[in-house]
């Protein structure tokens, strides 16, 4: 067998079926004329094809005519036409679908929640939701706290004011004569009495106004529970400003009194410094 025999042997079956172009056919014919093994190979193919031809067509055992009603598809026929793997998969799928449907049908629960239809599969319906009440503002406690804060703030301011006043008086008494000091102390006693009265009156006024403001504030808080402590703080600041105004007024009065007292001291007859 020559070196090119493999190539020519691959051409033999193609040549038997006239699947070669003329040039290839000529080459093959030339090779087969010279190569006995390849010619033998062609003979084997020829025998094979000859034997295959012995299996000629047979007549049909019956006619395979169809009827108009056979145009309708039959699900069972379609199922049977599937391969076993697909048949098994489809059967398993249908079975699972059936079981899931049955389970859902037996365990399904229907109800309404907040006016909406609710379905529950395999479990209880969700609990009815109740509105959560808003946190209640304890106005009484807040009133007491605000009152304490305001009272403490005013008391501190008043004490501070009296301390300053006494220091001022003590400084003013230096260099005075005995008589002047007596007069001054008398005047100061009177002044202190008047100042105390005025402070008490101012305090009462402040209390009243504070009470009025607090009442208004409480009402506002009650009406606007969600307004928060920021509003309260603003009110407090306003109250403090009012208190400072009153304190300023008291300061002005005290200054006037001190000026009057100072004037009386300088106009006393027969007195020497």
């Amino acid at each position, binding site marked *: 067998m020559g070196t090119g025999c493999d190539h020519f042997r691959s051409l033999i*079956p193609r040549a038997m079926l006239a699947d070669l172009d003329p040039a290839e056919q000529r080459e093959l014919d030339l090779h087969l004329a010279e190569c006995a093994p390849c010619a033998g190979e062609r003979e084997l193919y020829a025998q094979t094809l000859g034997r295959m031809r012995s299996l000629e067509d047979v007549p*049909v055992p019956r006619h395979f005519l169809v009827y108009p009603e056979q145009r309708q598809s039959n699900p069972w026929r379609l199922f049977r036409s599937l*391969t076993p793997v697909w048949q098994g998969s489809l059967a398993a799928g249908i079975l699972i679908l059936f079981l899931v449907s049955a389970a859902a049908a037996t365990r399904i629960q229907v109800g309404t929640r907040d006016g909406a239809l609710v379905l529950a599969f395999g479990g209880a319906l969700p609990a009815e939701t109740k509105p959560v009440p808003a946190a209640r503002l304890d106005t009484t406690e807040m009133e007491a706290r605000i009152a304490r804060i305001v009272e403490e703030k005013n008391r501190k301011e008043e004490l501070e004011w009296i301390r300053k006043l006494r220091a001022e008086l003590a400084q003013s008494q230096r260099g005075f004569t005995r008589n002047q000091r007596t007069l001054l102390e008398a005047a100061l006693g009177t002044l202190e009495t008047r100042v105390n009265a005025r402070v008490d009156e101012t305090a009462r006024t402040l209390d009243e106004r504070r009470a009025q403001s607090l009442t208004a504030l409480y009402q506002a808080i009650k009406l606007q529970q969600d307004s928060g402590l920021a509003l309260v703080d603003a009110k407090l600041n306003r109250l403090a400003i009012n208190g400072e105004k009153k304190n300023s007024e008291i300061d002005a009065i005290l200054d006037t009194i001190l000026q009057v007292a100072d004037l009386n001291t300088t106009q006393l007859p027969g007195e020497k410094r």
Partner: protein
Amino acid sequence: MEESLDHLMQQDRPLDAGASEKVQESAWVSASQAGDALAFNRLVLKWEKPVYNLSLRMLQDRDEAAEASQEVFCSAFRNIRRFRRDAKFSTWIYRIAVNQCISRLRRRPPGLHLSMDDQRPESPLKGWNPALESHEGDLMREEERRRVRQALGRLPADHKVVVELKFYQELTFEDIADVLETPLSTVKSRFYSGLDMLKLRLGGA
């Protein structure tokens, strides 16, 4: 139905060769698509022999081949409206037949090679009347047919179907590629490979 069949058989005479047959077949297809069962049955009578013999050589079982052939025509009848007029009816019906046979082969247990001769040892002589055919040559021819059936039955299905369509149904490689919706080179490769296997089993005998 029997009257219709006789009527059909009378009208099923070939008109002219080639083009006339194609025109006639095209008319039957059109009528079938319009719902005419009689016209479809004319197509059945024309194609039942190739379809049955293809099924028989593929499945190696007469009853199953008949069942498969019936199913092929029923399926074609149900789906005739989907047939595109620009395609060949032969390609379409062969495709249905091949799919039917391969589907049935796949349903068989792996490794099982049915043969009409294996199933029915008496089949080579079934219907054989010694009084009429006693010549030794007949017996030899029947033995050869049995060997060819066996050799074909042992080919892989994708090789067997190409050999069947090319050698027995005499389709071109291009038509086979259309039927199987497979590249032409693959079709040729399978055919020559199948032929090589058959040569090994039959050529040296």
